């Protein structure tokens, strides 16, 4: 199929960006979205032009590197997939595809479609851990964990930190991300000991870094490639209120 791509090009953080139009011919529906961009880049390189920069790594939907705003959706129109797993069979011949980077104050653009998501790491480093030194862990089966709790903790812990929730939210809020982390630890007895300190610290840094607040619109849940649930945000709220 033949496609028209309108891609946000921005040379670096300080430069002004704009959309550039590219024509792609003979795109195979068996390609993934990123492979389609790879093909475009190969073409650009052959013409000695600067290829479109985008983050990507594992290409199997788990590392969370990739992510772009495609036709009004983070990670494109198909629910529950990352951009690397977005198949071109969901597009049709003659389509125009608009591709933008995530946009949020806390995620400044580095180049083209690459944004700086280190704010997520900052949030994690404020409290996203259990303070146990290597070597001091008790026998693994000493503390039983209710299966349902372990499973719910897992459902929260599968967040890949791609930032689609922030990208989708009209407030650029990171609540879904933070709540997933808080939930994982709040649900496990191992994490309860410092649950209060954790949630306070993580919410505080989240605000400080310039993310918006949650208006419960559900955009994050709708676009999360890992289908993290809004119930985690309720849990975060609950944990936070309990912490004071």
């Amino acid at each position, binding site marked *: 199929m033949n496609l028209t791509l309108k891609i946000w090009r921005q*040379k670096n953080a300080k430069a002004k960006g704009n959309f550039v139009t590219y024509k792609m011919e003979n795109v195979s529906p*068996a*390609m993934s979205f*990123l*492979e389609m961009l*790879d093909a475009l*880049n*190969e073409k*650009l*390189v*052959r013409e000695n032009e600067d*290829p479109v920069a985008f*983050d990507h*790594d*594992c*290409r*199997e939907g*788990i*590392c*969370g*590197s990739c992510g772009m705003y495609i036709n009004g959706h983070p990670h494109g129109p198909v629910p*529950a*997939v990352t951009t690397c*797993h977005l*198949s071109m*069979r969901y597009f049709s011949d003659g389509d125009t595809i608009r591709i933008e980077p995530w946009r949020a104050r806390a995620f400044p653009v*580095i*180049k083209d479609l*690459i944004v700086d*998501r*280190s704010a*997520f*790491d900052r949030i*994690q*480093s404020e409290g*996203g*851990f*259990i303070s*146990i*030194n*290597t*070597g001091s*862990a008790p*026998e*693994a*089966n000493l*503390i*039983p*964990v*209710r*299966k349902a709790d*372990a*499973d719910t*903790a*897992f459902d929260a*812990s599968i967040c*890949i930190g791609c930032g689609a929730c922030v990208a989708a939210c009209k407030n650029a809020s990171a609540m879904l991300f933070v709540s997933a982390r808080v939930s*994982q630890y709040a649900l*496990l007895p*191992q994490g309860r000991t410092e649950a209060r300190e954790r949630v306070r610290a993580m919410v505080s840094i989240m605000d400080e870094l310039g993310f918006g607040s949650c208006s419960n619109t559900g955009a994050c849940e709708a676009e999360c490639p890992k289908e993290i649930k809004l119930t985690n945000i309720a849990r975060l709220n609950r944990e936070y209120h309990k912490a004071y």
Partner: protein
Amino acid sequence: MEKLVSKIPDGPLAQKWTKYKASSRLVSPANRKKLDIIVVGTGLSGASAASALGELGYNVSNFCYQDSPRRAHSVAAQGGINAAKNYRNDGDSVYRLFTDMIKGGDFRSREANVYRAAEVSNQVIDHFTAIGVPFARDYGGTLDTRSFGGVQVSRTFYVKGQTGQQCLLGCYSSLNRQIKKGTVKMFPRREMLDLVLIGGKARGIITRNLVTGEIERHGAHAVVLATGGYGTIYYLSTLAVNSNASAAWKAYKKGAFFANPAFIQIHPTCVPQMNEFQKKLTLMSESLRNDGRVWVPLRADDERRPNDIPEGERDYFLERRYPAFGNLVPRDVASRAAKERCDAGFGVGETKLAVYLDFRDAIEKQGKKVIEEKYGNLFQMYKTITGSDPYEEPMRIYPAGHYTMGGLWVDYELMTTIPGLYAIGESNFSDHGANRLGASSLMQAAGDGYFILPNTINNYLAGEIQQPKISTDAPEFEEAERSVTGRINRLMAVRGTQSASAFHRRLGKIMWDHVGMVRNGKGLEEALGMVAELEDEFWKDLLIPGSPDELNHELEKAGRVADFFELARLMITDALHRRESCGAHFREEYQTPDGEAMRNDREFAHVAVWEYAGEDREPVLHREKLVFEEAEMKIRSYK
């Protein structure tokens, strides 16, 4: 020969590690904060090492090329992590895990290291549980295990099909704890481009800031490489597309010996290639073989849909060839068997390079719900990629390059032949021999990082407490930086017509065809010539747009591909030297009449350790003789 001192403690196997820890030198807490350590890589081994060393009080600098340490490719491991807990009361023990690994590695790994890996495996599980890894549990609240990867006990702990992700995020969380404490400083989006030696000791690294293009110097009292494997040498592999061999390769060229480079595991259950632009083959966890049955049609070129092929016209070739282990034979055996069927014309799908992995019987027996509970996310992933639903129709799978057992040679302390340079996790060679057993990579990586390195590195650093901070103004840093810049400029200056990826793809094809699942002398010789030719072309016709002073993915790729050419030649040289079939290394000349591997213990019961001898000179081979005092050397048989 005296360069290879493996420093294995004396005494009975089971006592070695305890004895080592009791007698190695220590660094007092007050001195630790004066010592700097560089850890390159933030996967399971890198992040765990950085955090454990940070906990001890060392000053750690941790580097990764990704935008966040959480993205290292350990994240993609699926199936599980082994430990000798014997929670199932099924006869498991540290000793049995050790023998399984030795046997699985086809007697090409070092006994003492393997035993120790098995020994710390239980601590690893305890630790992960304590830091909040949500392992699968039984209704009673205790940890669940499953059987995995060709062993007869159920010792694999798992988190659905995302064990690697969860373990990595566990390590990432402990890393973050240290970042908050200030003991670890994180340097994301940095690529290590050279190792700096001062007075023969590893004293720092040169990195490129991948955002600004700046070349940076970092000094330390010790350098730890946790940079993973080099499976992307095949271009298409289960690895992350940016995974590369460069850090280990620079270390090799600075004098660290490289062991068994030809030992590279081909994983049997991957989603087959679907188009020519594909960059990556997605792994479908080996755990699927617990319930899935592998088959091809009995008739070659059978065009029917798989569900239309009646039971009598299916060839469950693994069950047929290996009745004792059936679908659960180790990875190398399963991979070769699939290749054999496809080469003989029985493959399925458009490319005929695939076999079926069928869950019909399992779904019938256990119900869809149970299967979904076990593999839901994998089935979902498969459907996302291929558009076909594995609950309805068998999966199509084909082997792909996966894990490198080979790597930098290390001694018992995980130190390379360069004093002060350590290699942990997949980047070293020590624990998996010629073939890795399923669910033992996470185990080894976390064991290395959390429990082994932090107990061995002191022995070296105790001798460094007099050494003041390493100045990056030293002429050695100057020189290293100059050579890095020089090479970048050389790459940029080629100004030819082809992209680095185009070369990588061609190199990968050569390697896959000639140095892949099966090798032979003639093919290897040919490959050597082809690689050299392609490398030549690379340096004449490469094209990198843009400049080196900015974010430039093409430049990054080109540097990695340039290193892959050199590594490819070493891999081939190693494969040529090893005139036997063992584990993942299958030389067609050395097989039994029924097509099984023929090991040659008399001549090749050694680790092949290669020393860089300089540009345009053949590497020098050293041999570390493998002595098996505990495990009895047997022919692997899964029949």
